[in-house]
C-alpha cells in the first residue's frame, strides 16, 4: 500500500500521488495546476470498466473487484493503469487483500480515483444522492424514489454532491464543472455498458431494468450498515462538523497558498458516505450481478451424447430380455413345478392354513396396486381356493384406491366362490388409519348416544385371522404396526410381492406375523402343498431365465468396471 495524505478540506485519505481529493475534489498538492481531468482522456488509458449503465452500480462494483483480482500478483505500487475487464470475466471472485484489512477491490477504487476522479466521484455522488433521496422520502413508493433519484442524477451533478436542487451552487467554476461532467457523464458508463453488452439502452429502460431501485436500496443499505462502524477512516467516511474541524487542523500550513475552490454547500450533503462492503454484502452483490448477467447470457447447448448411449443400451437390454422371455414362454413344453427349499415364513403360513378351522372368519385386506396384481393373483389364488373349500367367511377391506376393482378381479377368478357370502367392509384411504379404525371398531364396549351408525359393521367377535395382500413393505408395515397392538390375539399372515419380502422378514422373526408368502417360488410351493392345480407352469422357466440374465449382467458389468479402472490406472 502506498502512503496516504489527508485532504485539507474534508480530511479524507488519498493516495500519496493523488492530485485531487477523491471525495471533495479539493486540490491536494500546491503545485498542481491540473484542471478537472477529462474523463474521455482517462478512458483512453484503457479504463474500460466504467462503461456500463449509469445506474449499473453493482456491475461497477464487481468490475472494480475484477480489477483487483487481475492484478493480485502484481506490485500495486508500480501500477498506473487499470486493467481492462471483459464481461466474460467471472464475476464474483473475491480476492480480499489482507494488507491492513482493506479489501483489494476497495484499494483499486482508490487507485482509480487518483487517475479518474470523475468515475469514483460520480459513484460516490450517486450513492450519496441516492441515500439522500431515500432518506428524505422513505414513505413514497420505490418507483417514485427511483424516478426522483434519476432526475437528481440527471440534474446538476457538479462534483456529484449536490442532490438537492434547492441547495444551489454558488461557485461559477463549479457550475462549469458540472456542465462538463454532465456532458461527459455517460461516456465512462457507456463503456461499461459496452463491455457488458448493454448498448443503446434507453434511459427509461435503464431506470426500469432489473428493478434497479432495489439495487439502489441495497447500495444505500450497504452504506447504512457501514455508518455504524466506528473508528474506520477512509476517503469515503462521513464526517461530522466536529471531525471536519479537527481534520482541518491537520492542514499543512507550510504549503504554498493557492486558490482552492470553495464548496459552500452543507457538509452533510457534501461528504459522501463511506463505501465499505462486508463479506455478506459482497456475496449478495455477486449473486445479484451474476443474476443480472445470467439473464442476458447465451444458454449453452445441452449435450445429449450420454443420453443416446443410454438409450441404445436400454434398447439392447430390452431386446435381450424380451427375446429370452419369449423363447422361454412360447417354445418348449411347460415345466412341471418343482418346489425349492421351504423358507421358515412360508412354512409358518402353510401351518396356519392347514390348521385353519372350517367356517373361520377371515379378513382379506387389499393393499396393492394393479401393476402387481399378476404376481399377487398367482400367489393368492391357491390360498383363496383352499379357503373357499373350507367354507371360510370372507370379509374384504381395501386400503388401496384400486382395491375395490382388484377384489372383483381376484374373487371373480375363484371357482365355486359365492360372492353373496362375502362381506365388503369398504375402503380406508390410508392403511394405518384403516388399521386403527378397524381395531377401534371391533373393541367397542359402549356407544355414543345419537351417533350415526357407521357404514362399516364389524363382526362382534372379531376375526379368526387376517390376511394382508400388499405390494410394498410400507403398506404392510402400517397394518402390522397397528394390528399387533390393537388386535394382538388375531393371527396375521402376509401375501406380498418379492420386493416387499426382505423388509418384512423381521416382523416374522419377532413373532408379529405368523407366516408370509411372496414371489413366484412360494406360489409354486403353495400350488404343490395345497394341491390346487398348476397355474404358474410356463412362467417359472421364463422367470428363472430372467433372474439368471440379471445376475450375469451384474457380474459382467462389475468385471467391465474393473477392467476400465485397470486401464485407467495403467494409463496413469
Amino acid at each position, binding site marked *: 500500500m502506498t502512503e496516504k495524505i489527508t485532504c485539507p478540506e474534508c480530511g479524507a485519505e488519498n493516495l500519496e500521488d493523488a492530485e485531487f481529493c477523491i471525495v471533495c475534489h479539493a486540490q491536494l498538492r500546491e503545485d498542481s495546476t491540473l484542471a478537472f481531468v477529462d474523463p474521455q482522456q482517462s478512458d483512453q488509458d484503457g479504463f474500460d470498466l466504467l462503461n456500463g449503465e449509469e445506474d449499473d452500480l453493482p456491475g461497477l462494483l464487481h468490475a472494480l473487484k475484477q480489477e483487483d483480482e487481475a492484478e493480485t500478483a502484481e506490485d500495486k505500487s508500480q501500477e498506473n493503469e487499470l486493467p481492462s475487464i471483459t464481461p466474460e470475466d467471472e464475476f464474483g471472485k473475491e480476492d480480499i487483500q489482507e494488507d491492513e484489512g482493506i479489501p483489494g477491490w476497495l484499494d483499486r477504487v482508490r487507485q482509480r480515483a487518483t487517475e479518474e476522479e470523475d468515475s469514483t466521484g460520480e459513484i460516490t455522488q450517486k450513492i450519496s444522492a441516492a441515500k439522500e433521496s431515500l432518506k428524505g422520502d422513505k414513505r413514497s413508493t420505490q418507483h417514485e424514489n427511483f424516478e426522483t433519484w434519476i432526475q437528481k442524477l440527471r440534474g446538476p451533478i457538479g462534483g456529484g454532491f449536490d442532490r438537492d436542487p434547492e441547495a444551489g451552487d454558488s461557485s461559477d467554476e463549479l457550475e462549469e464543472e458540472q456542465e462538463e461532467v454532465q456532458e461527459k457523464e455517460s461516456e465512462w458508463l457507456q463503456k461499461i455498458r459496452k463491455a457488458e453488452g448493454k448498448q443503446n439502452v434507453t434511459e427509461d429502460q435503464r431506470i426500469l431494468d432489473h428493478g434497479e431501485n432495489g439495487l439502489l436500496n441495497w447500495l444505500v443499505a450497504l452504506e447504512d450498515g457501514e455508518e455504524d462502524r466506528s473508528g474506520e477512516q477512509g476517503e469515503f467516511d462521513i464526517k461530522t462538523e466536529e471531525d471536519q474541524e479537527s481534520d482541518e487542523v491537520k492542514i499543512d500550513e507550510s504549503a504554498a497558498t493557492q486558490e482552492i475552490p470553495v464548496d459552500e454547500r452543507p457538509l452533510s450533503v457534501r461528504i459522501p458516505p463511506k463505501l465499505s462492503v462486508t463479506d455478506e454484502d459482497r456475496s449478495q452483490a455477486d449473486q445479484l450481478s451474476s443474476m443480472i448477467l445470467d439473464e442476458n447470457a447465451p444458454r449453452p447447448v445441452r449435450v445429449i451424447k450420454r443420453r443416446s448411449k443410454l*438409450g441404445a443400451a*436400454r*434398447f439392447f437390454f*430390452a431386446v435381450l*430380455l*424380451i427375446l429370452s*422371455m*419369449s423363447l422361454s*414362454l*412360447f417354445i418348449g413344453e411347460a415345466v412341471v413345478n418343482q418346489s425349492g427349499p421351504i423358507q421358515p415364513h412360508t412354512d409358518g403360513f402353510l401351518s396356519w392354513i392347514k390348521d385353519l378351522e372350517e367356517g373361520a372368519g377371515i379378513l382379506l385386506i387389499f393393499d396393492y396396486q394393479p401393476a*402387481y396384481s*399378476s*404376481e399377487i393373483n*398367482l400367489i393368492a389364488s391357491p390360498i383363496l381356493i383352499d379357503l373357499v373349500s373350507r367354507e371360510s367367511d370372507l370379509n374384504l377391506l381395501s386400503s388401496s*384406491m384400486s382395491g*375395490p376393482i382388484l377384489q372383483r378381479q381376484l374373487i371373480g377368478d375363484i371357482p365355486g366362490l359365492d360372492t353373496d357370502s362375502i362381506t365388503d367392509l*369398504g*375402503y380406508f*384411504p390410508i392403511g*394405518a*388409519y384403516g388399521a*386403527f379404525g378397524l381395531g377401534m371398531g371391533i373393541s367397542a364396549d359402549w356407544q*355414543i*348416544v*345419537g*351417533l*350415526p*351408525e*357407521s*357404514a362399516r359393521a364389524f363382526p362382534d367377535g372379531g376375526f379368526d385371522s387376517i390376511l394382508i395382500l400388499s*405390494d410394498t413393505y410400507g403398506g404392510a*408395515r*402400517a397394518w*402390522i*404396526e*397397528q394390528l*399387533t*397392538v390393537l388386535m394382538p390375539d388375531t393371527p396375521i399372515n402376509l401375501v406380498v*410381492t*418379492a*420386493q*416387499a*419380502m*426382505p*423388509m418384512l422378514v*423381521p*416382523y416374522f*422373526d*419377532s*413373532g*408379529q406375523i405368523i407366516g408370509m408368502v*411372496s*414371489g*413366484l417360488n412360494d406360489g409354486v410351493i403353495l400350488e404343490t402343498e395345497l394341491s390346487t392345480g398348476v397355474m404358474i407352469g410356463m*412362467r417359472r422357466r*421364463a*422367470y428363472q431365465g*430372467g*433372474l439368471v440374465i*440379471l445376475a450375469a449382467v451384474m457380474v459382467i458389468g462389475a468385471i467391465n468396471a474393473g477392467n476400465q479402472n485397470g486401464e485407467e490406472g495403467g494409463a496413469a
Partner: protein
Amino acid sequence: MTFTYELLWIILSFLLTVMVLSYLLGDNIFFRVAAHLFIGLTAGYVVLLIANQILWPYLINPLINGTWPEALWLAIPVVLILMLLLSQIRRFTWIGSLPLAYLAGLAAAIAVGGAVFGTLLPQSRAIVDSFDPARWYAVPNQTWLRILDAVVMLVGTVGTLSFFHFGRKQKTTSEEEYEKQPSIIEGLSKVGQVFIGITLGAVFSGVFSSSLLALIDRILFIGQFLTNLFRSF
C-alpha cells in the same frame, strides 16, 4: 371373428400395452397419449371412489336419512370440510389451519403409537430374545450357530443404526476432526454399510423379480392375443 364384449376390452388392453411398451424405443407421442388417458381415467375413478365409498356413506347419507342428533354430530366434520375447501381461496388460507391441525394430530399420534408399540419395542425385544440361552440350546446341533446368529444380529443392527448417525465429535483438536464422527460410531458405521448393502441387494433382486413377472405377463398377453388374432384369420 365375432365382436364380443370381452374382445373390446382385450383390444383396448392390447393397444394400451403396446403404447406404453413403446417407451422402450424412446419417449414418443403414443406413450404420452396412453399416460394422459390413464391419468384422466384414474382421476375420474378416484373422484367416484371417494364420493361412493367415503362421502356418501359417512356424510351425505346420514345427513339426509338420519335423525337430527346424528345430523348435529355431523356438523363438526361438515364445518371442517368447508374450512378445508375455503382455505383454497387465497384470502382465506388461514382457515385451513384447523382441519389440517386435526389431520396432523391424528397422523402424528398414529405414527408415534405405531412406531413405538408396533416396531421399536417388538424388534428390540427380538434382538434381546436372540440372546436367550433357552433358544440356543433348543436345537442341540445348532447352539454355536445360534450364538453366532445372535451376535451378528446385534452387531449388524447397531452398525446399521450407526450409519444413520449424523453427530460429530464433541472434543476436537483440529478442523478435520470436527467434521468426523466419533471413532467408534465410524467403525460401526462401516460394518453397518455392509449389512445395508446386503439388505438392499436382496430388495433389488425382489424388485426385479416383481417387474420381471409383470414383463412376463405382458409378453404372454401379447403373444396370446396375436396367436388368437392370426388363428381367427
